[in-house]
């Protein structure tokens, strides 16, 4: 089977065979020192976009990535293979109190290698909030339009016109019946076979992750990729960074191997993602990198709660593109922020992901798994960061220097979560559900909206009781004009340290209130184009 897969052309693997520069740091047996114009830490949405733009401008670029280089032939649509290899902490990263499970990519391609391809521009209402409430310059809809267009062209973001799988069509149907607005999602794919395994790496190079677009673009322009190397800390002299210290990882990738890599560059770009980027600044331990103690603050998650429904028909949500339909009804009707808004979407439903997302064990869990083919699942993503009470989390360092996130769900957001349980149950019953189960420790499975409504009204909205998830980590190095209130300026340049930029999801001053990938592509393109101009001249 896998021999044939090669016939589809694993052009990324071919590129490396033909001489793209790559060092797998786990193979090093001694320390190494390198020099370059720009070093980019991370190869995800931000890192990939920056790498191509800077390399094509004629700069010598080195990309340092903690995760492994894996290409389409390595993606076998198997959950037990993909999570340990391609996700941070094998997919088991959690907030400090263990109340929210965090999914982040850790591979060449970062989150874009394993994400679900949902592509939204930054909502106009979010851009407006940044301008009006946070004093950000250069981020109006008009100023951002060319960058969204760049992202849509470069990553082939297009309307997805294939009929939805039954998981998504239930959302459409339920919303339609209730008279609630819904829409179709654009995706960054070309030649997509509608398999539904975006979360374990696209086996046919249909998904336009940075792994198959901008990283190859940068490599063709002469960049060098170092995989399985964890950027540890910056060394500074007289207020500028003189070198970056990296640790090679073992071939398994979960711990450092002992070898060190030192990279000296003219400019340093942090693109290790929210959590990853703030962690490197914190580890560096230099006051000038974090003069106001803001690094790692205001980290947002779009906290997600989940509702399962048993339909009277097969749903088989493991197959067919995930997340192709959405509803913003509860975002649009709550823009006054009196209550938190939330976006509704439909995740992919492979069995391991599902079995671990449910609370409980024994007979009831087994019964739900038996009915799994008929299971329909909705998720609600809370719009955090737009209210004085919703201040997000704080990145901190654990005893071994690896990062964690302390995120306390505010009372305000908890009410949004309760409302979302009800909204999802209503849509599911309207779509024909026989039974609905809010995914909460103290909830069961219920046969009518009346019954479930009563239960939801009384469920304790408390951490480790409601099951919460996040695949969208944003913030931690917020951008702004005021150097006392932000870490980087509105060009992504560090306020204090002149040869440092942050180009990834950590620059957002609030959550995006939509899936963040396209926002990261666009802001990075804007920042990197500006940086390239400055550096080439």
């Amino acid at each position, binding site marked *: 089977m896998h021999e044939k*897969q090669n016939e589809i052309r694993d052009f990324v693997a071919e590129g490396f065979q033909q001489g793209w520069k790559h060092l797998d740091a786990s193979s090093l047996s001694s320390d190494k020192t390198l020099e370059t114009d720009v070093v980019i830490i991370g190869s995800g949405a931000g890192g990939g976009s920056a790498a191509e733009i800077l390399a094509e401008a004629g700069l010598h670029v080195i990309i340092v990535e903690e995760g492994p280089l894996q290409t389409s032939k390595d993606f076998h*649509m198997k959950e037990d293979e993909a999570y*340990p290899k391609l996700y941070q902490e094998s997919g088991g990263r959690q907030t400090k109190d263990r109340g929210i499970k965090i999914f982040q990519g850790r591979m060449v391609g970062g989150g874009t290698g394993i994400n679900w391809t949902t592509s939204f521009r930054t909502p106009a209402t979010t851009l407006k909030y940044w301008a009006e409430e946070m004093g950000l310059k250069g981020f109006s809809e008009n100023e951002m339009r060319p960058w969204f267009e760049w992202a849509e062209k470069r990553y082939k973001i297009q309307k997805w016109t294939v009929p939805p799988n039954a998981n998504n069509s239930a959302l459409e149907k339920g919303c339609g019946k209730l008279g609630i607005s819904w829409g179709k999602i654009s995706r960054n794919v070309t030649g997509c076979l509608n398999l539904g395994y975006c979360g374990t790496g696209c086996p046919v190079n249909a998904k336009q992750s940075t792994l198959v677009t901008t990283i190859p673009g940068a490599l063709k322009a002469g960049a060098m990729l170092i995989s399985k190397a964890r950027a540890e800390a910056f060394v500074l002299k007289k207020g500028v960074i003189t070198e970056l210290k990296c640790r090679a990882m073992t071939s398994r990738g979960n711990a450092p191997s002992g070898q060190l890599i030192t990279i000296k560059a003219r400019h340093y770009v942090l693109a290790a993602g929210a959590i990853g980027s703030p962690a490197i600044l914190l580890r560096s331990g230099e006051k000038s990198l974090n003069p106001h103690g803001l690094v790692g603050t205001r980290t947002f998650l779009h906290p997600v709660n989940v509702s399962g429904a048993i339909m009277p028909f097969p749903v088989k949500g493991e197959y067919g593109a995930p997340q192709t339909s959405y509803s913003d009804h509860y975002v649009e009707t709550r823009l006054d922020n009196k209550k938190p808004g939330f976006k509704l979407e439909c995740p992919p439903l492979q069995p391991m992901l599902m079995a671990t997302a449910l609370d409980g064990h*024994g007979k009831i869990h087994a*019964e739900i798994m038996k009915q799994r083919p008929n299971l329909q699942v909705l998720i609600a993503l809370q719009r955090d960061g737009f209210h004085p009470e919703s201040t997000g989390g704080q990145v901190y360092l654990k005893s071994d220097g690896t990062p964690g996130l302390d995120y306390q769900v505010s009372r305000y957001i908890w009410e949004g979560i309760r409302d979302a349980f009800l909204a999802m149950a209503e849509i599911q019953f309207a779509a024909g559900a026989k039974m609905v189960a809010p995914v909460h420790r103290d909830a069961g499975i219920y046969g009518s909206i009346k019954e479930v409504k009563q239960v939801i009204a009384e469920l304790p909205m408390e951490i480790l009781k409601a099951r919460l998830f996040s695949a969208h980590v944003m913030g931690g190095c917020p951008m702004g004009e005021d150097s006392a209130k932000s870490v980087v300026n509105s060009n992504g340049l560090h306020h204090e340290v002149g040869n440092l930029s942050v180009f990834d999801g950590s620059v957002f001053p609030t959550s995006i209130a939509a899936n963040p990938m396209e926002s990261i592509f666009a802001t990075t393109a804007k920042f990197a184009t500006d940086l390239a101009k400055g550096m080439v001249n």
Partner: protein
Amino acid sequence: MLTRRKLFKQSAVSAITMLALESCYSSPEIPPAPDGLGHNFEFLTPADRGILSKLTPVILAEGLPTITEQKALAIREIIVGWDIAVSGLPPLTQAEIRKLFSVLDSNFILSLTPRLLTGVPDAWDNTKEIDEFLNNWRFSDPQSLVTGNELRVGYMGMVELTMASWYANPRSWDFCGYAGPPVLW
């Protein structure tokens, strides 16, 4: 008789009294480790594997095959899957799971939580008792003044690793109606 579980429910008893009581209580019987299918275990000790062999059927219940030999094989494979999964986790997470097992097999040198507080079964041969223990942890107060969130988090860890190990295994797919990844070629 004052059983561990009764004591567990009497939350008024202080942790110190319990530690004192515990020290004069006999140590638990750890079930023998099942056959390891030739896997070279990196993390799980024979005692861990013995305990998992008893926990797994209670956690997965009807999700496991009913035919005895198939069930036994499934349990062995799940334990191997656990070992592979834990071995790939960051060192700090591995240390936490080590601590969890030290609570389960009552190794006080490593564990901070006295066993009487945790309600770990007296012996691992009674399914009902294991189920009660799991439910005690599942429904424990995540903000407990004595044990913090440890029991709830420990429960979630045990259950999640077991579910992941089984439902990623093709042998479970018939039961949950999954035809597996599409065959492309």
